[in-house]
């Protein structure tokens, strides 16, 4: 038996700040269609904002000719959101913990914490065709 096609949504956006709102709205709409309740949408939206912010600023350095690609896939019991940039990536293991005493007064460095808080699983991968993909999973 051939497998049923998985439902997916893909957004392709220029690397600029306005794309953060676009991506947040696009993924929130898709998550609503997949049946997520309103109070889960808030966290999904925030995680997507943080991931797209990182793709625009750190991955693609606001080069508007380079796309940020956002994917939403319905994997039955969970939704998988991916955000791909065209950057060199980074080592998530060596990112400073923003909640440790010496970092509390820093003005940045809390995005990944929010992604991890509001999604059930967050991981980074190299894309085979180049760039970095953050893959975030949220259970229904």
């Amino acid at each position, binding site marked *: 038996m051939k497998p049923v096609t998985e439902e997916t949504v893909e957004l392709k956006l220029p690397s600029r700040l306005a794309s953060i709102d676009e991506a947040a709205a696009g993924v929130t709409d898709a998550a609503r269609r997949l049946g997520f309740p309103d109070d889960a949408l808030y966290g999904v939206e925030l995680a997507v904002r943080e991931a797209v912010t990182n793709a625009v600023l750190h991955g693609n350095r606001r080069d508007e000719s380079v796309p940020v690609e956002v994917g939403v896939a319905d994997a039955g019991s969970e939704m998988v959101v991916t955000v791909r940039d065209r950057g060199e990536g980074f080592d998530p293991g060596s990112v400073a913990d923003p*909640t440790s005493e010496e970092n509390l007064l820093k*003005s940045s460095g*809390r995005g990944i914490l929010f992604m991890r808080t509001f999604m059930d699983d967050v991981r980074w991968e190299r894309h085979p065709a180049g760039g970095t993909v953050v893959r975030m999973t949220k259970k229904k």
Partner: protein
Amino acid sequence: MAELNIRERQAGDVTILDMDGKITIGEGSVSLRGAIRRLIEEGKKKILLNLSGVGYVDSSGIGELVSSYTTTSSKGGQLKLLNLTQKIQDLLAITKLLTVFDVYDDEASALNSFK
């Protein structure tokens, strides 16, 4: 409509900023930064941020609240928070910033605390 609207009121020597909208990367964070910078320049160093109308904050917005706090403190001033929504309260808990900020949920007590 601007992302973040900020109105300024004076209560004795305390300046209250009533904020409405979103503190997110870009416009919202930039407006807040500008407002704090201006108050400091004017010598207004007792600042109360009323966040009751702020429905959305991202990590950049939280970072901007922290910067507002450190900038004010470094000039010998005080910056406190009033009327957090549940969502902002949660984000401050997650980031362990509830211990850093002085947070109030009624204006009178907040104003009193500056004495």
